């Protein structure tokens, strides 16, 4: 039987967890062989907030996202999702956490043997078994309508453009109504019009779903449009974090150099 003090402590921890940032990364280190990719990076994102992570290619931006969703394990440091440390969790325990997270891969990573409709239905079929087939179908159509792809249900991923694949990937990421959204280079490889459409779409979805989001990009315009806060990373750590104006007013040489060439 718990004593009153123990109960109070547990309640306090629960309250602390509910007030914890949606995503909190602390002193994260990651190397691949002799190559150090992340070198003690720390970041936090609250519910309803969007953070854009900027940096040169190969500075570990995508690795950071993969660590947050548990696709890679850090060498040291912690990754907390709603206050719970996910480092070292077994795959099925991690699955419980991942159900609250949506991930848009850089190249969309659609299942190439499934149609657009089946791709979006995939998470529902595995996690919403209480829903009927027609309810799945309705939800898939609604999601595809949100991303403007409702007319391409039967198409295969190879039959649609890169921008369309990203839209479908976004619909799939939103299928389980996550409260955390991770976007890896959402506009990379797209023409300016498609990139602007994706930016608008992400903004609209964030407003509607009120998620905590991290957008990894090297597209400054996209970061400015989508995110309220920006973090510029270099050599595996955050050089500066703040609003776009704060970045513009920074005296740090690397920041000036980055903004000049963006």
């Amino acid at each position, binding site marked *: 039987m718990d004593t009153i003090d123990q109960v109070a402590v547990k309640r306090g921890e629960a309250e602390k967890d509910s007030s914890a940032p949606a995503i909190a990364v602390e002193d994260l280190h990651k190397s691949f062989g002799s190559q150090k990719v992340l070198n003690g990076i720390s970041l936090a994102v609250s519910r309803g907030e969007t953070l854009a992570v900027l940096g040169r290619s190969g500075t570990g931006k995508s690795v950071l996202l993969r660590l947050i969703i548990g696709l890679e394990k850090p060498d040291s440091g912690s990754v907390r999702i709603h206050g719970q440390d996910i480092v070292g969790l077994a795959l099925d325990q991690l699955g419980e956490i991942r159900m609250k*997270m949506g991930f848009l891969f850089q190249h969309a*990573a659609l299942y*190439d043997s499934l149609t657009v409709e089946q791709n979006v239905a995939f*998470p529902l079929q595995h996690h919403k078994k209480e829903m009927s087939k027609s309810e799945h179908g309705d939800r898939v159509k609604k999601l595809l309508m949100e991303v403007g792809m409702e007319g391409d249900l039967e198409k295969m991923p190879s039959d649609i453009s890169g921008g369309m694949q990203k839209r479908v990937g976004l619909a799939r990421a939103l299928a389980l109504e996550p409260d955390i959204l991770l976007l890896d280079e959402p506009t990379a490889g797209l023409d300016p019009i498609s990139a602007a459409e994706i930016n608008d779409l992400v903004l609209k979805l964030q407003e509607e779903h009120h998620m905590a989001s991290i957008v990894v990009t090297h597209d400054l315009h996209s970061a400015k449009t989508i995110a309220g806060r920006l973090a510029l990373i270099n050599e595996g750590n955050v050089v500066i974090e703040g609003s776009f104006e704060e970045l513009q007013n920074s005296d740090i040489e690397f920041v000036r150099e980055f903004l000049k060439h963006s």
Partner: protein
Amino acid sequence: MFPMVSSALGLINKFLEWFGDLGIFFWQVVRAAVTPPFEFRELFRQLDEVGSMSLPLVALAGAATGIVLSLEARYSLTRFGAKSLLPAAIVFSVIHETGPIITGLVVSGRVGAGIGAELASMKVTEQIDAIEASAVNPYRLLAAPRILACILMLPLLTLAADLCGLLMGWVTQALVEPLSLRQFIDSGFKGADFNDFLPPTFKTMVFGLIIGLIACFQGMRTRGGAAGVGRAATSSVVLSSLFVILADVVLVKLILIFFP
């Protein structure tokens, strides 16, 4: 001298590392396979993929083996004056060894390469990561049904190979001199019991485990784009064939000990 020793040690180290990773992978698959939710739909799809899609090739290989065995055995036994033993020699060779091993090698070529390439392609295009990110266990969805399908289908495919091998063995004999199927069966199976038939057939479940496990492992750990996919397919076939042959050596000895 020293560089040779150090490269040999490096190779041993690599092999032990590979073996350790394979053991961890196997444990992950077993854990995923025995806990719900069970992926029955994917299992049935894989049973069809491994079983019915491999059937024509296995049957053809079994038939060809039956013909070759029949021709070779006829030549040898006639030389030694033991022609009357011809049906028994064919039956015992096919059921004991050639049927199971030919099935194992044919399936490791067709299915091993297929699984290795398919999973490797999914890995390099981040589809396996997407499955994981969707909170679905890829060991449960991808590896367990494929390995289980290989384990369940190998004995059935072996039966098909045995049947085709025996039939073609009889046809080859019957073309040379009159021999009815009944005579061939009566004479061939004289003195045979279940111990001659069941252990060699069921040992192919181990071949199925080896083929499925190695192909899934090689596919799901691939790195490096299209070249990586090619390497995964090749290594799946080479390693699974090699381990099927090695396992056969051990299993034959064990069968002789436990089912004399």
